[in-house]
């Protein structure tokens, strides 16, 4: 497979009381053409900020201080603002957890999409409306003709998310960034949206960067997985590798503490303690304070994300050699 998006050393900082805090800290990512990469982690781990950094939409006072974001070889961080705007419209689209935040409440949803289409291509209103109707059919909106003239508040949560997906698809993007796309939805509606994203991805050969905290969604939708903890990617691998043989202690803990995989009556294996806030990040591994396998080196040095087998990476001193191994020298 060929890489569509290659991210190297991406670092996004926010000012803190005692100096800048790297909320996204030197991360590498790759999304191939036609694949779904899941970026998974708990709240505050920096996964959404990573997505916003790729789009160059980091809210102030945050800023990208280092790294490259190559879309088919072209570094997006180097592009002039006007060209970046074009990339955001045509090449990369984004959907969010709460569709209402991205829909204008006083404009019919059809008009919002027609406007988006006409902003990016010179096409007549009638053609754009017809395209919009076709998109509504593709994303499974019943009675599409009537729904074009509906206002956002007249639609259910599931339909609003379908409208958002239609809007994202309207400019035929190569990459869809989906940030917690089903988190606000009920479980039966969530299942509908997962199936829809899977179908669209397959039919269009589009790539998806899925941002989520939910391992169930990761399993249902992704091809490859990157696990993020406290600003850094700690493990990457194929979906099956991550679920079957997670190697990083955090990934293992995350899977084991999920009640879906536990036996009723058995004690849930918890990850002790709490996620450290960016102010508490030390110079060592950020998971060390909660890690059962941690040893001296973990407090002193940040482990690099290293290849452990073909296309399988982990950032852990214990895997690199452990307390008795080369890690200590």
């Amino acid at each position, binding site marked *: 497979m060929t890489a569509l998006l290659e991210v190297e050393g991406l670092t996004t900082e926010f000012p803190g009381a005692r100096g800048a805090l790297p909320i996204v800290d030197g991360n590498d990512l790759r999304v191939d053409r036609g694949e779904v990469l899941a970026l998974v982690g708990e709240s505050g781990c920096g996964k959404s900020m990573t997505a916003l950094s790729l789009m160059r939409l980091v809210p102030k006072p945050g800023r990208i201080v280092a790294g490259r974001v190559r879309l088919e070889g072209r570094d997006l961080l180097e592009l002039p603002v006007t060209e970046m705007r074009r990339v955001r419209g045509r090449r990369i689209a984004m959907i969010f957890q709460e569709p209402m935040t991205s829909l204008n409440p006083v404009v019919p949803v059809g008009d919002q999409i027609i406007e988006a289409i006409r902003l990016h291509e010179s096409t007549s209103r009638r053609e754009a409306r017809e395209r919009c109707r076709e998109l509504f059919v593709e994303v499974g909106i019943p009675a599409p003709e009537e729904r074009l003239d509906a206002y956002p508040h007249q639609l259910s949560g599931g339909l609003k998310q379908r409208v958002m997906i239609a809007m994202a698809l309207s400019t035929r993007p190569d990459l869809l960034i989906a940030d917690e796309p089903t988190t606000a939805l009920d*479980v039966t509606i969530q299942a509908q949206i997962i199936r829809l994203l899977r179908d669209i991805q397959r039919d269009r050969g589009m790539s998806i960067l899925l941002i989520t905290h939910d391992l*169930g969604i990761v399993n249902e939708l992704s091809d490859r997985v990157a696990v993020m903890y406290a600003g850094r990617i700690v493990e990457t691998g194929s979906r099956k590798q991550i679920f079957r043989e997670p190697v990083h202690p955090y990934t293992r803990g995350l899977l084991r503490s999920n009640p879906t995989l536990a036996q009723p009556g058995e004690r849930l294996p*918890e990850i002790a303690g709490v996620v450290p806030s960016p102010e508490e990040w030390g110079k060592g591994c950020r998971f060390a304070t909660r890690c059962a396998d941690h040893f001296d080196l973990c407090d002193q040095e940040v482990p690099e994300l290293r290849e452990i087998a073909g296309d399988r990476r982990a950032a852990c001193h214990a895997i690199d050699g452990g307390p008795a191994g080369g890690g200590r020298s």
Partner: protein
Amino acid sequence: MSRSPGEPLLQVEGLRTWFPIKRGLLQRTTGHVQAVTDVDLEIAPASTLALVGESGCGKTTVGRSILRLTPAQAGRVSFEGVDLMKLSEAKLRGYRRHIQIIFQDPMASLNPRMRVRDSVAEGMRSFGIGRDEADRTERVKALFGKVQLDPGHIWRYPHEFSGGQRQRICIARALAVEPRLIVCDEAVSALDVSIQAQILNLLSDLQRDLGIAYLFITHDLGVVRYLADRVAVMYLGRIVEAGTTEQIFSRPRHPYTRALLAAAPSMDPDIRGEAPPVVGDVPSPSDPPSGCPFHPRCPEAMEQCERELPPVRQDAEGRVVCFLDSVVAPGAAESADPTGGEEFA
């Protein structure tokens, strides 16, 4: 105690909570949001009943109606044999001590300007627990230990704690008045998985050590399967199926229960949901469909389902409200081993 050992701690019968829709200048009632209709529930002492359903199904209203935080129009809510619906406000206050509630968002249920010691001690003071303030402070410290928080932190403010720690404070506050039942309304839904596991373990420890029963209101089937002894499934204000957790997950009888289970994302890397999910959206509770509330979305709906509400079928397995089940079940019962029913007797 005068109660017989098999008696439920809480028994809800025919609970109905409808909210009037008022329109126009005269604010005439033009309809009702039928949040909860004819709900029956039972919770045994020291057990967990999960009430599951999607948003708007009425599960939160059931919890609030049991505590009389939301007035119900009809029904019995008997707690240790006493009908809470018939009690005067003054008498009800005494019972509030026995039934506590914790919510999804601990920040919203803790006063941000109050030291957490005072939030936790508030209930004790109003129920006369503890000799004096110094004694209550000691009790708060002990409660902090019980919910695995640092007793040295009792004088802090809520914002000085993390989300998981704040939920522990809410649990400590509920425990402070020594309840026999805690209604947990999406109590772990907003927490990250690693923190959620800590709180679920804490809740099981407390049940084992203190014999507390839980009414666990949630949309998360993974949590239900792990935690609950029995499950009641709600759809559009009604309970459509109830049974043991084992039965609900391995032999769901209602098509909605089956749809709900099929829709839950799989965590098995060899299995992804492929079956087409149930179609459409949940209808509005202010204008529920005729007949069985699930019929517009039910893949097995028959003509009858549109016209009539299916009868409640209660048997050894549990309870189900579906025409299909009452058609299938008699035959199944005949073929069953006649001694098989004894364990339920």
